[in-house]
């Protein structure tokens, strides 16, 4: 029995200045229908490239070295498979300021997106207009319809992100990938967009992959959480369980760094940042920043093991029974 979306042992490298840099190492992820999964990690952890691999829109210098991705049983790493998958997956990007072409009216772009999804099927102008209208209404930004005649640069960031969501809705996707959908927005707008996404995925029975560096957002909107670090999944499991009892030192550090009032701050509890050499490290990728690290951590990369029901962790210290400060 295969899952709705399955990523298995994905290894991905990027060519840059004649060098080959490993970016994703052995990334696996499963997602069921109507499930909401969060991928959490800081900048450079590889979460966006994972999503782009699923959509088949990797940058030109990225190469998949091994691993499989299947969506609905179809291999998306072939050109045809990717095109087929894109019919049912829609992606929302981090910065709505750049993810919509500013030079074309909302109406014009929505109309094109709709036409591309029809594949030559004929629809009357009235049908199209009403579908565009209902998509915008679904994204709660139709208002009095004036938005249709506006240029994206005339809209606020929140409104642009709603237009982006409306474009995604036009395609009636069964999986929505939201890549940091609220990072570029102010705090009140963040909440609105997030609850809109949650509401829509429930109503339309869409699966959701939510990519975020913000654990608060992951906790509110997902059932399962994958924590990524330096291109590896270091911990995965039911969201509530991970928050209650994080097993990986990195996850623990992230959770500890959330201020109690649940403001959207993050990562500041851990010193340093992801170093390039961590990706190719002999030992654990997190060892250089880990305050629990033992000798073994510096010699071999730990494997992902199920240490609690449904909760997988890649950490020797956790395997040995928990996090104690050395």
């Amino acid at each position, binding site marked *: 029995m295969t899952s709705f979306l399955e990523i298995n042992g994905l290894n991905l490298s990027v060519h840059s200045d004649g060098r080959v840099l490993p970016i994703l190492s052995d990334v696996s992820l499963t997602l069921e229908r109507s499930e909401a999964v969060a991928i959490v990690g800081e900048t450079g952890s590889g979460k966006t490239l994972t999503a782009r691999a699923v959509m088949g*829109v990797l940058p030109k210098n990225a190469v998949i070295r091994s691993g499989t991705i299947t969506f609905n049983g179809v291999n998306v790493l072939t050109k045809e498979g990717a095109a087929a998958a*894109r019919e049912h997956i829609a*992606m929302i990007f981090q*910065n709505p300021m*750049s*993810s919509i*072409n500013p030079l074309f009216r909302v109406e014009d772009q929505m109309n*094109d997106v709709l036409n591309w999804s029809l594949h030559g099927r004929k629809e009357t102008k009235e049908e199209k207009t009403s579908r565009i209208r209902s998509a915008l209404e679904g994204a709660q930004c139709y208002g009095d319809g004036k938005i249709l005649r506006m*240029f994206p*640069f005339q809209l606020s960031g929140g409104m642009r992100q709603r237009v982006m969501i409306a474009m995604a809705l036009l395609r009636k996707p069964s999986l929505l990938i939201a890549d940091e959908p609220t990072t570029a927005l102010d705090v009140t707008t963040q909440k609105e967009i997030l609850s809109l996404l949650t509401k829509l995925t429930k109503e339309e029975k869409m699966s959701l992959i939510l990519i975020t560096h913000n654990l608060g957002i992951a906790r509110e909107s997902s059932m399962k959480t994958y924590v990524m670090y330096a291109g590896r999944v270091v911990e995965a499991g039911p969201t509530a369980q991970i928050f209650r009892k994080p097993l990986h030192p990195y996850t623990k550090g992230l959770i500890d760094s959330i201020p109690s009032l649940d403001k959207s701050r993050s990562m500041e509890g851990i010193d340093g940042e992801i170093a390039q050499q961590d990706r190719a490290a002999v030992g654990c990728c997190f060892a250089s920043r880990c305050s629990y690290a033992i000798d073994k951590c510096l010699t071999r990369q730990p494997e992902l093991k199920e240490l609690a029901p449904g909760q997988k962790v890649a950490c020797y210290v956790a395997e040995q029974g928990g996090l104690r400060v050395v």
Partner: protein
Amino acid sequence: MRFAEFVARRVLLALVTLVGLSLLIFYLSRILPANPGRLALGPYATQAQVAAYDRELGLSRPLYEQYFYWLWNFLHGQWGLSIVTKDNVLHDVEIHFPATFELITISIILTSLIGIPLGVIAASRRGKILSGVVRALWMVGVAIPSFTVGLGLQVISSYWFHFNAIIGQISVPPPTHVTGMLWVDSILTGNWPAFVSTSQHLLLPEIALSLAGIGQIAQLTYSGMLDETEEDYYLALKTFGARSFALDFKYALRSALIPVLTVLGLLYASLIANAFLVEEVFSWGGLSTYAVTAMQSDDFNAIVATVIVIGVFYVVLNLLVDLSLGYIDPRIRLGVGH
């Protein structure tokens, strides 16, 4: 309406520049030379003639009065006489400008029509070889002086292709005067022999004048299109099922064209400078030939007149480019920053 405001502001700035330019020209013509009268009348004028001329210019009066007097004369068509043609230099300019205008206008049209599609096709996946061609054309086109291209074309076409239209504008009786632009006039009057002859004579100068620009525009379009494919919106539309054709020609091209249009405007204006070199090579009877003769023979009023015409042309053209950019990019039109 914000666009009206935008236009008004740009027009005002252009007017300020023109006033500044008139001050600069006034400085060059009246203050920089030790003896403007002698400079304007040439070495063969008598001392009494020079003195009379100086009185006419009001050289003894305060500077600002001189400036306004000069400006008043200038605005009333009193641009002074040429020591070479003995005619009002304004009239000389009217005779010579059309030939240059025709040359550079055809050149900028050719540059756009060849350069932009070349860049777009090179940027589309198929054009691996073509992108190398564009890059080479750009690199060499910018580095090789246009007079070298012109001389080379003359030799190659006359020796290997026995093509004789390598000098002048026309080798049959010219068409009836309508605009002063021979090629245009031969079309307007339906003069077939003149049309054929002017077309032949235009061929080589246009290549010499346009080569660098075609390379530049093709490269700019090419790299602009490639940049657009890296944009988030390009990726987003791709995930929404956009076909490459629609993405490239509708969405990417419009954004990529904005810098291209800016450069086309600058190029059009700077062609008038390159035309100086090309006209010299091809003995083209345009403004440049007139100006170079004037400079070589210290024909002062004629120099000032050509500078004014070119300056006004340049400023007006830049204004038009600004305005058309405002038209294409709604952000500029609606007064929103990027």
